[in-house]
Structures are given as structure tokens and as C-alpha cells.
């Protein structure tokens, strides 16, 4: 084995002793590389991840938008497609991340037993968690960028700040991928995935995605504001409309905390499940 690798592995060992989080060798990217290799053979899926939000954009934004006319958001009147495009971007970041980190990970965990062989190498549970979550993000990043380009063509982008919506969507992806993967470690059968849908679908529809927060009854506004997707949608919308205020920090902080908790929790669960 080459000398620099031993150095790296040794440093990882010292880090593992110093920090009370599950061990890793700092080589999560190797798992990303592995996923890329296997993904090249199933590239068709890339199409669905891209087309879904684009179809929604034309059906809801352009189609229904022509009936709805303008909507008021943050004290400003904008065409419906401008209102809904950020929400679709945020929601597709969520959907993609959840899909990657639940279905795909469950298969690898329970059937392919992929991580059993990965953990026999220097990689540790932290590398598995980081690698899988990073992979979900990378794919999400590609989809978000492509969606933004289409949204711009459809006239739904009004501010150059919209470029920041791509990293923002990646942040949303991180939060949902990490929580989704942690949840996956508790699943026993494919039937358990119905619970995921049960959590995702109402969020998709009712996080001020398709209509503004003000249209919800006062009692429900608080509930809506507590969901992670609400913060994701609000963050992306602020950026795409170019209306950035201190609220943005709240949204970012909420999602960062979710991502950190989810990642640590996932690593801990992988350790519990596989290293016993």
C-alpha cells in the first residue's frame, strides 16, 4: 500500500479517537465513485429525475398559471409560474434526495449487502453515510441546474440571485437525504416505504408550494411553517425572486441542523446495524 494512504488512514484513526462520532477513514468519495460506476449503466433514471419537475412546471406553472393570473407573494404581484417554479425546484430536490436515500439505500443495505463488504475495507460507517448522502446531492445538483435552465427559458427566473438556488436546492437535498437515509435504517420491508410517502406527499402539496402561506387558515400556518420543505421552498423563492432578507438565515439554519443531525444519526445507525 502506498505511503500517503497510510498517512491518511493514520490521521483518520487519530480523528476517530478524538471525536465521538462513528469512525471513518475520510474516504467517502470512494463510495461516490462506486455509485457513479454503477449509475452509468442505469442512466435512464437520470431522465425521470429531470423530467418530473419540468412537466410540473409546464402543467402547473404555465398551464394552470394562465388561468390563475398573478399571485401576491411578499407584497409583490408576480405571474403564477414565477411563484411556483421555486417551489417545484425545492420539492424536486426533496423528492430526488428521499428517493435516492431510501429506496436505493434500502436495497443496498438489505439485499445487495453492499455495505458489509465496504466496511471490511478501511472505510467506516461515517464514510458510508457521507458517501451515500453526497451521492444523492450530486445527482440533485445536476437536476437542479437543469431545471433552473428550463425555468429560465419559461420566463420563471427574474433575478440573477436565482443562480444561488442551485446550492440552496443542494442544501434541501442534504437535509432530506440524511433524514431519509437514517429512517431507512429502521425499515424492515418495502411496505414500510408507504410511511415515507405519507410524510412526503402532504409536504409536497402543502408547504406553501402551490399557494401562498397567507391562503392557509391562521391555525394551520404555524404547522406549515414548521415543516422542512416550507423552509426549503421559502429559501429558494427568496433567491429566485431576488428578495433576500434575514429570514433566509433562519431557513438555512433549519436545514443545516437537519442535515447535521441526519448525517450523524445515519452513521450511528449503520454502525449499530452492521458492526455488531
Amino acid at each position, binding site marked *: *500500500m*502506498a505511503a500517503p494512504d497510510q498517512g491518511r488512514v493514520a490521521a483518520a*484513526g487519530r480523528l*476517530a479517537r478524538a471525536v465521538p462520532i462513528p469512525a471513518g477513514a475520510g*474516504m467517502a468519495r*470512494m463510495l461516490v465513485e462506486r455509485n457513479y460506476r454503477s449509475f452509468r449503466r442505469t442512466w435512464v433514471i437520470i431522465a425521470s429525475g429531470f423530467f418530473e419537475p419540468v412537466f410540473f412546471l409546464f402543467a402547473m406553472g404555465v398551464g394552470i398559471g394562465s388561468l390563475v393570473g398573478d399571485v401576491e407573494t411578499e407584497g409583490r404581484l408576480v405571474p403564477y409560474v414565477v411563484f411556483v417554479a421555486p417551489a417545484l425546484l425545492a420539492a424536486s430536490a426533496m423528492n430526488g434526495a428521499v428517493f435516492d436515500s431510501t429506496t436505493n439505500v434500502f436495497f443496498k443495505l438489505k439485499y*445487495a449487502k453492499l455495505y458489509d463488504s465496504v466496511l*471490511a475495507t478501511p472505510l467506516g460507517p461515517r464514510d458510508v453515510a457521507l458517501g451515500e448522502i453526497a451521492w444523492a446531492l450530486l445527482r440533485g445538483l445536476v437536476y437542479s441546474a437543469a431545471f433552473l435552465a428550463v425555468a429560465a427559458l419559461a420566463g420563471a427566473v427574474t433575478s440573477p440571485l436565482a443562480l444561488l438556488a442551485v446550492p440552496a436546492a443542494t442544501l434541501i437535498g442534504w437535509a432530506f437525504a440524511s433524514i431519509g437515509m437514517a429512517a431507512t435504517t429502521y425499515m424492515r420491508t418495502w411496505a414500510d416505504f408507504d410511511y415515507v410517502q405519507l410524510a412526503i406527499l402532504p409536504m409536497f402539496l402543502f408547504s406553501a408550494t402551490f399557494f401562498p402561506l397567507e391562503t392557509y387558515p391562521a391555525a394551520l400556518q404555524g404547522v406549515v411553517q414548521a415543516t422542512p420543505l416550507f423552509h426549503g421552498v421559502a429559501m429558494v423563492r427568496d433567491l429566485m425572486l431576488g428578495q433576500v432578507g434575514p429570514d433566509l438565515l433562519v431557513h438555512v439554519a433549519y436545514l443545516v441542523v437537519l442535515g447535521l443531525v441526519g448525517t450523524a444519526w445515519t452513521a450511528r445507525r449503520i454502525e449499530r446495524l452492521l458492526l455488531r
Partner: protein
Amino acid sequence: MIRARGLVKAFDDFTAVDGIDVEVRPGEAFGFLGPNGAGKSSTMRMIGCVSPPTAGELTVLGMDPRTDGPRIRAGLGVVPQRDSLDEELTVEENIWVYGRYFGLPRRLVRERAAELLEFAQLTDRARSVVEPLSGGMKRRLTIARALVNSPRILLLDEPTTGLDPQARHVLWDRLFRLKREGVTLVLTTHYMDEAEQLCDRLVVMDHGRIVAEGSPSALIAQHSTREVLELRFDTADHAAHLGGVEGVADRVEVLPDRLLLYTPDGEAAQSELHRRGLEPLSALVRRSTLEDVFLHLTGRTLVD
């Protein structure tokens, strides 16, 4: 290379490995022999740093698995009991990707993969996916993959279970070659012929404990006689014939389908039975094996 003192592995309230002492020296082939559930795999997983010991001391390559897991694993090759190949990748990609997990540069990994596929006689299948390979091919690929990091210790958990005799011999041959190259082999098996063929030293495990230790020939010399006379009678209960063979051998074991007479001289015992007018359906003299050692130590047969 590996040193265990009072090593224990407990799952909830069940103790799978119950305080074993083991010492594996550089360059040797060391075996764990034992029946199903003896605790062989649990021990291998602790050595492979994927299962934390419940109690006791363990050092592998001079390091402590509790704190230096990644560094130890970097020097190990692991062949688990169940093949865990990456079925979404091709044969050669399995080796490339696995080598990358060890942080090896891409170019090196490709070179090694070519050599290892040659070694595993899989070169012509390099680009096929893993799924349709035969059991023996998958096993060879798993072993080839485990060698990508040029490990100092190769851990093999039942390397030949499920293989036909020819495939087993091919595998044994590969393992001999590795041993000659200085790789330390640690393997588990419940085949005594495999243990006799491959192991310089072995321990016999039962119920999580070590019941005997030594080289195959020393174990046989110590715990069995030189020869065994196997007798089959036309009867439902072989124990009924115990009286008839009394005094003929040093020791007699009763199995459901035969009697085993332990004696230094099988021929002599056979003529004595003949003189007594005893007429078994069949009588066979053979050399003692590790199976007999196991039977003597535990009162049970190895392969059930």
C-alpha cells in the same frame, strides 16, 4: 500477527465466543475448525474489525481493533462466509472499486485487477456482470478482490463451502500459492480434509470455546489412535453390538449408522472380530482424521 486473550463475543444474552486464546504467527496457515454455530464467523468478524469484542484482548497486526480499525483493515483481505460481491458492477469493476476503497491509485488498481483476474482464471469474464457467474467463479472473484490491497493477512470464512470437489482443489491450489508468497492465511472450515490439507496449525472450536489446538497430525496423535475400524451391522441400534466388540479396541464410538473402533492396528482388530465369529455387513480400516479428534472431544460429528 493476531493475538487474542480471553476474547469474548456476546449478542444480547447469548455468548457466541466464550473466552478464546489464539496466537497466529507470520506466514502460517491457521484454521478454526468447528461445527455450525461454534463461533467461527463471530471470531473472524472480530479479527476483521467489523465486530467489536465484548471482552478480552485482541491485537491484529500489532494494533487494537477498537481504535485502529481502518489501519488494520488496510492490511487485511477478507473473504466472508457469504459472497458479498457488488452485483451492480462487472467482474473487473468489482476489483477496481474494491481497490479504490483502500485508497489505491486508479492505475495501480487496474494493473492489479489484470493480475488477479489471471490468478482467479476469470480473465475471459472480466467484462461480464457478476450475477450469472457460477458459485465457484464468484468465490474465486471474492478471493481475488480480497487480494487487491496485497494484504498481509487473508481471512477466509469457509472458503470452499458449496463448491464441487474440483473447484475446491483449484481454490486450495491458489491458497497454497499465496502462502508460498508469504501471506498469512486464517481460515474457518467444517471440512476436516480442508483443515488437514491447508492448515499448519488449527484450533477446534465448539460452543464458543477452544477444545483443542495443534497441528493436524499432532491433534490426531494426541486425541485419536493411528487407525480406525468402521463396522456396519444389519441393525437399527448399533449400540446393541457394543458387548460383542468389547476389549478389541482402545475406545469405541457409537454412531447411528456404524461403530468406530479406535486401535493402533485395524487389521489385528479385524481378525480378532473374525475369530469371535462376529459378522458385520461391512468392515473398513482407515487412518484417523480430525473428524475422529472432534468426535472424541465433543461426542458429536462435525458435518451434520
